[in-house]
């Protein structure tokens, strides 16, 4: 009998009775009617009959999606990087080759942008860390907890705006008739405008402007989790401000530093529009090199794919080494 009561359709949760009194013989809602339908009962009964079957249904779509949508494009890119033509013209055969990778090492013009991208990304990651750490520290430790959200939100607003609009804002800031040059001239430091634009400097300012948030948020959440009592205890034991930071705060926020740096490094290797708009011929980054193979006829795609694979694997390897190093640092600190 209790079993019967449990499955009685149109009762309890299915009929919205909790919303207030209804006319006698409670009206069936959409869900009530749906559950009462024999076809529905049959389908759900077969599909979700046991917890095992429920899990199988639940897991199938994600697995298919992840394999075909998240992994598929990367695997296809790897495949294309290993063939001699793609898309292959009708009537031609496709062959496996390593020539696309060999081309990178054969032609010197590709190596410079590659190294420049990695060095840029590494340096900018470090600079971003130095700039945002004090900001995150101030937010997490000095601002009252009720106000933290407002202070954080203030910083988030500009970061909602996309890559192009923010890059454009930097162009206006740094141009020959830009705000910085005007200010310098007005202050009497310079007579003619300083050529900030189309240099490594303008790209750096632009990319830091784009990525600072990805550093700020992990740092903030690491610092926020750190109990104030830790540094207070260190202070009671006579540690000065610098010692407290070096021996307590810094070691305990290494995890936040590691994830912030990983994110910023990976993301800054992938910017395309910012270097195109803010850079010049002497600051070509690898993203522009890769893109070049996709603007022209299709037969260059394999080379572009190979270069993209090289870039991604190198960037991932570097972040893996970096993260290993950071973990070791953490363990050493604990001993």
């Amino acid at each position, binding site marked *: 009998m209790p079993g019967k009561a449990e*499955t*009685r*359709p149109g*009762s*309890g*949760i*299915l009929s919205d009775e909790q919303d207030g009194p209804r006319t006698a013989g409670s009206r069936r809602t959409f869900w009530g009617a749906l559950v009462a339908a024999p076809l529905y009962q049959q389908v759900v009964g077969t599909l*979700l009959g046991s917890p095992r079957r429920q*899990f199988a249904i*639940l897991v199938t779509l*994600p697995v298919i999606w*992840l394999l075909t*949508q*998240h992994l*598929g*494009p990367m695997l*296809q*890119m790897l495949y294309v990087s290993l063939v001699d033509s*793609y898309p292959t013209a009708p009537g031609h055969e496709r062959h496996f080759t390593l020539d696309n990778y060999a081309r990178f090492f054969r032609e010197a013009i590709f190596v410079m942008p590659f190294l420049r991208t990695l060095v840029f990304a590494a340096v900018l990651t470090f600079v971003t860390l130095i700039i*945002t750490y*004090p*900001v995150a*520290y*101030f937010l997490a*430790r*000095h601002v009252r907890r009720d106000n933290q959200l407002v*202070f954080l*939100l203030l*910083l*988030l607003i*500009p970061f*909602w*705006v*996309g*890559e*192009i*609009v923010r890059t*454009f*804002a*930097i162009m*206006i*800031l740094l141009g020959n*008739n*830009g*705000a910085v040059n005007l200010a310098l001239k007005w202050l009497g430091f310079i007579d003619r405008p300083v050529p900030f634009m189309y240099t490594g400097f303008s790209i750096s300012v632009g990319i830091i*402007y784009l990525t600072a948030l990805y550093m700020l948020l992990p740092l903030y959440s690491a610092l926020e989790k750190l109990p104030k009592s830790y540094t207070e205890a260190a202070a009671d034991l006579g540690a000065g*401000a610098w010692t407290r930071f070096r021996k307590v705060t810094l070691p305990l926020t290494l995890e936040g530093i590691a994830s912030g740096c990983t994110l910023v490094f*990976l*993301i800054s*290797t*992938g*910017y*395309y*529009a910012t270097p195109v*708009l803010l850079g010049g011929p002497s600051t070509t980054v690898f*993203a522009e090199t*890769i893109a070049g193979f*996709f603007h022209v006829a299709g037969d260059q*795609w394999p080379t572009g794919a190979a270069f993209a694979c090289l870039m*991604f694997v190198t960037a991932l390897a570097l972040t893996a080494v970096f993260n290993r190093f950071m973990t070791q640092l953490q363990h050493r600190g604990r001993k």
Partner: protein
Amino acid sequence: MSRGTRLFMSLIYWGFVVYVFVPLILMVMMGFKDSKFIGFPITSWTLDWYTRVFADAEVLNAFVYSMVIAIASTAFSLAVGTWIATLLVGRSFFGRGIIFGLTILPALIPGIISAIAFRIYAQLWGVAPGMGAIIWAHAVHNVPFVMLVVSARLATLPPSYHDAARDLGADPVVAFFRVTLPYLKPALIGAGIFCMLLSFDDFVRSFFLGGYKPTLPVLIFAKLRSGMSPEINAISSVVLVLTAVLGVWAERSMRRMSKGN
């Protein structure tokens, strides 16, 4: 903490606020300049650039096109991201770590690499560059963000809610739609707006997967390359205000939920 360090820290914070806001404020100001020539100083002001933007069919078309792409891709991302979150939260099974890692993957792939990987993949499936291809790439790219936001909310759902629904006769499907989904609402609103902004502002995927019709960021990019005019400032300023308002709304929606309301 001494007063000296405190003051120094607050100076750094406000310096940072100035750093992130000043370029955008200058950009907005330039949109009111009464001259075709971008640059300081601004001596006279006008609203012409704005009236011109709202009458420019090319800009309006690009805006609508970007909105359609944003809404469509967000619908896919929300559905898939929520499904994966439902699978991952509160369950331990073989391969859970792999599924989590694979879900996060698109967020970690550098922009240009993700864009060309999708360009190649679209070719494999015979999808021509254009709206469909862009929606597809945006949808995949945004799934990780939905999964993370929805998982955070789902983890706070008391199991008793679900049990109560089952006791009252709901099968798992009904329990999901009538108990879990309403509970997830703030997370879905927050994640949805977040995805729409990511899609609307995305350049690199839209650029490599687009056909002849430009999305708004691609149009601004093209205009920037062919020569600057305060009209671009007016367009960018409109985008800025819209994005900021929606962003704050999404952020509030998500913060409120973390407080447990």
